[in-house]
Structures are given as structure tokens and as C-alpha cells.
């Protein structure tokens, strides 16, 4: 074995994202100095991206306790039971840093990675969703980035034949330097086919299958664990070009094998490549793995053991196979014209041993490699500005626009507008199971041979989380719950992606602590187990952090997919009801963003208890068919939600609000405030009684606001706009700035 080297220089350590303290910690545990290769492996596995050394302590607050949960956090993806032996497997993951460097390939390989996480569990992916953040669209560079990210997400999903059924997109100048690209995948598997990422049985062979190993992406994990600085350009070889075609074949081959008793464990080769996949599989199984690098198929000549062990080449999987059954397994890969090689075997000592040219070049105990890092506990503090900002007037400077003008501008804001420019570039129908297409609150994918279906949504915190990260996270969960309730679905479980800045900054650490606490709290109160997640830190550019951006993906069950409410209003004469309480909320609102006031004032009101009851009431009304349409109030408040119901249904409406505007506010908060927990329902003319009854039984306020019909969207005594103008505004919000090809 190569001798240990002299102590590495601070520069070398920084390259590996290791602190000096961590280095010494490693030396102490190993009882010797690691060699260059071992240090690289430690650096990758101890990186924030792989080890969660900063966030792990916080994440323990999230509970995965619930009867339906089969697999909680810790595996490739979370799993819940859908009944009758069918399991649903899902996870969300970020690919922010690669997408900032190369938007098409970065976004594409993000989708590729999350798909592998799901089919590594033996589940067939049935839906992809994406959550995106960019700067403002009046900036050509942002338009380019947005267009290219959408192209990349679409490219991978479209090629592989998994529908992209929904997503969430938000534009704000705060994301100018750091776009966010989170991808979620949902898959289905029957219980006996569920696989685990574990190595078992001493002497069993370890196979590497799929793409050849190249020099690309070395140290991607480290790269995602440091800030993007001006020097980011030089790390660009970390960017990779994905091969969705190869992954499609890989997926089919793995799914074919999922039923076979010859396959004992399966894991994708993600961040930190072979090092992390082998180390983690062996660690879970309480065994070790010996790898022979000479058996690893390479794309390039002259690769060093270091490069082979740390390459993050896409579209590779590691398998542990029962001894004597390798040929049976390889036959499946052969049929799909995929390379498969035995590259190692399971050993008894809990170590990762690496052999190259007959010599042992690395030998690391797994307890050290996987769990030996010293936890990082950076300081945190609430910045003083928060107190002042929370108390400020949300619309300083007031509103110079008329209410009508503000309304139309909100509809034309890319954050409220029609998103078909995005999802029409995604195949959202392949599989013949998408029964509610993107464009409304949640997508619905039916379950074959059953009456029920999966409702899926992703939602993220908006600007208000800068004022109150705890509330911001809670609002994201509440919005997801509402989106599901609009389709009559009950949440089964949640996955989350925590996108934050540099945790070494005290403010960012405070945001992270608050957001996780808020997430834990909301999930507990709304009884949603958290089954998987991902953390992306260091989203900074030149010292500026992104706003705290927790994103949640929630999967729910719809009882009967043949009885779903229409998107938008359905018929003239139907009655319109508001379910929930009219609460204030212009702090951090979309109106405030359009006015350019800064992020000020108290964030939107939220009563998690009431939120839960309101969702029960709406769910009941929708699933018993009493509500012909349901939509929640989110960005842009009640006025925008009402206009959306009108535009999507192609019908006008006339309503009157119960509350009166205060003189100082002039109705702005009533119309555009983003208080949580509110829905607009439409019911047949005779159906009002049932709404009132059900809402009363759940102790949820409801009010009859008016009727569907006419060619205007009219809020009596306050504001009214022509339906056609509302439709035009909404149509142009994204399509307008994005007209024409982007190179």
C-alpha cells in the first residue's frame, strides 16, 4: 500500500472540502496518516453533500412515524404502502450547482440521478416533477438559463419515457446568481420486488453495470459543498453529459432483475461514485467490500485509482449478487446491450479495500469513512434586521396602481401566470396514466387496475421565508396539502429538499434551523410523515446567499379517479364559496415583489390546526362530488385565485366579499393578501347547503361569495376586469418574455 503522505497543505485540504480539524480527526481514528487516494475518498464522503454533517442533527426532528410508512429516510428513496401489496417510492433531490454551470446537462443529469434512486429500489418510475428558481425574466441571462434548464429536464424525462407531470417555478431577483433545480421522482413497486441498497453475504460478487467510468465529474460531491465563486469556471470538468438512452436500458434491466432472488442489493453510483456507493452498501450490511479497479471498464486511458474511485460518471449502478448466479444476472444486461463487470466482492471486515494492479492502494474502515466525520455545528443567530422588517409596513410607498391594474399585473407575473410554456416541453402523458395533467393544483396519476390514484405536488417557500423561515417552511407544507385537497386527495407522505446558502454564515444557519423546525412542526400537526429528502447548502454567489428555500413534494391518494373536479369553473350559475378564513398577508407577497418594496411586514397568517380542518372539509366535498371545482388561494391571493378559476374554465364570475376594506388599505389585502388556508369552491346551484353543512362539521368558516357567469371577473364594490383581459395577462406572463427560440 502506498505510504501515508506528509500532512497535506491547507490548499489541498480546501480542494477536498476538508477542514484541518477534520483531517486530524481522521488521522486519529485511523491511527495513521491516509494516503492521497484515501484522503480523496474521505474528503468526498465527509463532504456536506454525502455526510450531511451540518444538517443531520436538525433532520432528526422530522418524523417518519406513520402506519403507511415502509421505508423512511436513509435509503435511496422513501416508501409508503398503498394497500393491496403496492408500494409507492419517492424522493426529491437538488442539482443546483451543476445546473448553474451547465444548465441543460446539469438539469438533465439531475433528473437522471433521481430516477436511479427510485429504480434502485426496484420501483418503476411513474412521474417526475421539478421545482425551479431563477432570477427575473427581464434579464436575458436568466431567460437563457431558464430555457436551458427546462430543456434539460425535458430532455432526460422525454427520452427515458417517464412523464413529467408537474412542478413549481418561481422567479425572484434573489436567485439571480444561483438558480435552483430540484427534481422529484415517484415510482411504484409491488412489495416482494422492493430492493435495498445493501451488501450481504461474504464472498458474494459486486458488479458495476452501465456506463464506462470516465474522468468526468470527479469531486462533484465536494463541488456541491463549497460556494460557487469566480473560480467555478475552472472546476467545470465536473460537469457531465448524461445519456438518457443508456439509463433507459439500465432501468429496464434493473427492473427485470428486481424480482430475482439472485440480486441481493442495488445502489446507484451518484455523488462520490464508486466510493460512496460501495461504502454505503457495505455499511448498511455490516460487511466490507474489496474492489479490484483493474476490472472497472474505463472510458479513457491512463486513469488513476483516484480518478476511478471518485469519478461521478452517470448511468452506473452497483449490484451485489448471490455467489454462483453472476451469469444469470449478466445475461439480462447483455440483452440490453449493457456492460456489466464483476469488480469486487463482499468481505467480512468492515472496510473498503481498493486493489489496483495487484496491490492494495486504499484500505479504510467503514465506520470512519461513512460515519467518522466530526459533526459540524456552526453558530447561528437571527440577524437584527428581521425584527425591524417584520414590523414594517408591507407596502411602503403605497400602491400607485389601481386595484384593476395591480390585479392584471399579478396575473401577468411569471409566478402566477400560465406555465404551459414549461410543461408543454415535457412529455407529461407517456404511460397513459396521467389523468390530471399539469396546469392545475396537483397532478393525478392513476393506479392501474384500481379505482384510486396518486395526487402529486411540489411546493416551495416564497419570499416570506426570508422574513420568517419557520413560517415559510410551514406555508410550503400547507400549500402542498391544499393542492392535494383540491383534487380530493389525502397526503400519504412528504419528501423535502432544503436549499440554503453557506451554513458557515450565522444567519444562514439560523434560517436552516428555523426552517427545519417549521417543517417538522407543520408535518407533525398535519400528520404527514417525512420519508425522504435532500439538503443543498452553499447556494451563494460572491457572498450573497439565496433566500431560505425549503421545497416539499407530497404524494396523496385520490379515492376515485373517475370523479375528479374540473380545473376551473365548470358551469354558469354555479355558486362560488370561500372556504377558510380571510386573513391578512401582504408581507413577502407577490404584490410586494411586483412593487419592488423589499421583503417587509408580517408574513401571511397561518393556523395549522385550521389549515388541517379546512383541508378535510374540502377533501370531503371534492371526493363526494359536491364541489364541481376547487382551487386554493396562494400567490396573488383571492383575486388571482378567482381569476384563475375563471380563465381556466372560460367563464366569468361575480362575487362580493363579506369583509370591507379598511380605508388605509383600500382593499389590497382583501384581494391580494396571501393568508393561508383558503379555497374557492364552485357547486351546483342547489349544492350550497352541503358545503355549509360539511364546513360546519369540520368547524371551518365558509362564505357564499357569488356566482359563476358573465364575461367579467367582478368583485363587487372593489374591482372588476374583463375575462379576456385576465386570460391575455395570464397567457403572456411566461410565454411573452420567452417568445422565440433561445440558443
Amino acid at each position, binding site marked *: 500500500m502506498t505510504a501515508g503522505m506528509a500532512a497535506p497543505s491547507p490548499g489541498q485540504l480546501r480542494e477536498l472540502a476538508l477542514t484541518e480539524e477534520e483531517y486530524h480527526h481522521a488521522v486519529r481514528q485511523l491511527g495513521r496518516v491516509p494516503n492521497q487516494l484515501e484522503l480523496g475518498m474521505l474528503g468526498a464522503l465527509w463532504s456536506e453533500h454525502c455526510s450531511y454533517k451540518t444538517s443531520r442533527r436538525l433532520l432528526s426532528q422530522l418524523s417518519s412515524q406513520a402506519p403507511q410508512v415502509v421505508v423512511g429516510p436513509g435509503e435511496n428513496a422513501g416508501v409508503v404502502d398503498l394497500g393491496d401489496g403496492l408500494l409507492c417510492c419517492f424522493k426529491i433531490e437538488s442539482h443546483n450547482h451543476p445546473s448553474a454551470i451547465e444548465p441543460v446537462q446539469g438539469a438533465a443529469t439531475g433528473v437522471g440521478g433521481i430516477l436511479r434512486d427510485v429504480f434502485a429500489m426496484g420501483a418503476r418510475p411513474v412521474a417526475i416533477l421539478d421545482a425551479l428558481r431563477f432570477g427575473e425574466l427581464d434579464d436575458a441571462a436568466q431567460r437563457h438559463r431558464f430555457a436551458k434548464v427546462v430543456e434539460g429536464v425535458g430532455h432526460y424525462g422525454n427520452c427515458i419515457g417517464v412523464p413529467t407531470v408537474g412542478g413549481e417555478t418561481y422567479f425572484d431577483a434573489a436567485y439571480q446568481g444561483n438558480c435552483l433545480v430540484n427534481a422529484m421522482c415517484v415510482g411504484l413497486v409491488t412489495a416482494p420486488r422492493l430492493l435495498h441498497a445493501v451488501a450481504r453475504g461474504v464472498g458474494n460478487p459486486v458488479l458495476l453495470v452501465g456506463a464506462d467510468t470516465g474522468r468526468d465529474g470527479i469531486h462533484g460531491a465536494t463541488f456541491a459543498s463549497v460556494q460557487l465563486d469566480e473560480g467555478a469556471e475552472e472546476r467545470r470538468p465536473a*460537469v457531465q453529459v448524461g445519456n438518457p438512452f443508456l439509463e433507459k436500458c439500465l432501468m429496464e434491466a434493473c427492473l427485470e432483475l428486481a424480482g430475482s432472488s439472485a440480486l441481493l442489493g442495488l445502489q446507484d453510483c451518484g455523488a462520490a461514485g464508486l466510493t460512496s456507493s460501495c461504502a454505503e452498501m457495505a455499511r448498511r450490511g455490516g460487511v466490507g467490500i474489496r474492489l479490484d479497479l483493474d476490472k472497472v471498464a474505463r472510458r479513457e486511458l491512463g486513469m488513476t485509482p483516484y480518478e476511478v474511485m471518485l469519478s461521478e460518471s*452517470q448511468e452506473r449502478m452497483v449490484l451485489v449478487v448471490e455467489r454462483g448466479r453472476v451469469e444469470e444476472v449478466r445475461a439480462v444486461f447483455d440483452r440490453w446491450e449493457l456492460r456489466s463487470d464483476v469488480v469486487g466482492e463482499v468481505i467480512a471486515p468492515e472496510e473498503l479495500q481498493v486493489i489496483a494492479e495487484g496491490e492494495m492502494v486504499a484500505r479504510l474502515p467503514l465506520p470512519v469513512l461513512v460515519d467518522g466525520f466530526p459533526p459540524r455545528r456552526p453558530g447561528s443567530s437571527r440577524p437584527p434586521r428581521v425584527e425591524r422588517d417584520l414590523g414594517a409596513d408591507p407596502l411602503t410607498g403605497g400602491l400607485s396602481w389601481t386595484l384593476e391594474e395591480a390585479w392584471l399585473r399579478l396575473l401577468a407575473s411569471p409566478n402566477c401566470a400560465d406555465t404551459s410554456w414549461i410543461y408543454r416541453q415535457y412529455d407529461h402523458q407517456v404511460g397513459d396514466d396521467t389523468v390530471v395533467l399539469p396546469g392545475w393544483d396537483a397532478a393525478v396519476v392513476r393506479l392501474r387496475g384500481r379505482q384510486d390514484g396518486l395526487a402529486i405536488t411540489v411546493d416551495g417557500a416564497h419570499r416570506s421565508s426570508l422574513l420568517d423561515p419557520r413560517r415559510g417552511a410551514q406555508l410550503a407544507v400547507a400549500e402542498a396539502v391544499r393542492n392535494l385537497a383540491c383534487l380530493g386527495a389525502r397526503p400519504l407522505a412528504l419528501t423535502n429538499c432544503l436549499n440554503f446558502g453557506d451554513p458557515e454564515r450565522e444567519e444562514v444557519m439560523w434560517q436552516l434551523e428555523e426552517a427545519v423546525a417549521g417543517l417538522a412542526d407543520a408535518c407533525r400537526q398535519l400528520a404527514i410523515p417525512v420519508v425522504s429528502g435532500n439538503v443543498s447548502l452553499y447556494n451563494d454567489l460572491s457572498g450573497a446567499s439565496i433566500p431560505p428555500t425549503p421545497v416539499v413534494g407530497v404524494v396523496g391518494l385520490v379515492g376515485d379517479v373517475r370523479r375528479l373536479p374540473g380545473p376551473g369553473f365548470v358551469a354558469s350559475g354555479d355558486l362560488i364559496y370561500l372556504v377558510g378564513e380571510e386573513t391578512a398577508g401582504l408581507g413577502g407577497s407577490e404584490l410586494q415583489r411586483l412593487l419592488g418594496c423589499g421583503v417587509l411586514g408580517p408574513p401571511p397568517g397561518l393556523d395549522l390546526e385550521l389549515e388541517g380542518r379546512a383541508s378535510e372539509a374540502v377533501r370531503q366535498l371534492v371526493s363526494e362530488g359536491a364541489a364541481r371545482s376547487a382551487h386554493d388561494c396562494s400567490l396573488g391571493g383571492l383575486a388571482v385565485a378567482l381569476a384563475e378559476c375563471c380563465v381556466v374554465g372560460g367563464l366569468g364570475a361575480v362575487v362580493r366579499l363579506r369583509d370591507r376594506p379598511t380605508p388605509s388599505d383600500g382593499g389590497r389585502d382583501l384581494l391580494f393578501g396571501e393568508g393561508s388556508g383558503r379555497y374557492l369552491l364552485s357547486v351546483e346551484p342547489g349544492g350550497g347547503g352541503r358545503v355549509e353543512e360539511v364546513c360546519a362539521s369540520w368547524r371551518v368558516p365558509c362564505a357564499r361569495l357569488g356566482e359563476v357567469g358573465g364575461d367579467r371577473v367582478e368583485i363587487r364594490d372593489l374591482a372588476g376586469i374583463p375575462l379576456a383581459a385576465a386570460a391575455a395577462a395570464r397567457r403572456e406572463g411566461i410565454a411573452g418574455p420567452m417568445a422565440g427560440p433561445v440558443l
Partner: protein
Amino acid sequence: MTLKPVVNDPQGLAVTQGLHALGYPEVRGTRVGKHIQLTLVAQDRQSAESRVEEMCRRLLCNGVIEDFHFQLSETGA
């Protein structure tokens, strides 16, 4: 525009496999790039060269994953 040598080229891989299947085992490898034919008016060769170089850098070539080179040839008029 050609993909940088270290960058994975799935297209090239597929073409190589396709050629092998068609009975061309002598093919050792293929890399697929873009060929852009540009017609432009310029005072002289030198200024054309510097303008095209600039266009490549700014728009035509994705420097993260691609390299470029170009040739000028004069047409009449």
C-alpha cells in the same frame, strides 16, 4: 463545434455501435459535433477571422463542454 475530449459523448457511442452492427468493425470511435456554416460580409480576412472567433466564443460554442475551430473561405461578390 466538437465536444471536449473529457466530455462524455453518448451520440458518438451510439454511432460507433451502430456502425459495428452494420459490419464496420474497423471503426474505433466516433464523436459527434456541430458543423455551422456561416456566411458573412467582411472587409478582409483578418477582420472576418476575429469576428467569427468572437461569435464562436459568445454564442456558437458552449465553452463548458465544447471546443471550436473554424475555416474561412472566400466566396465571390
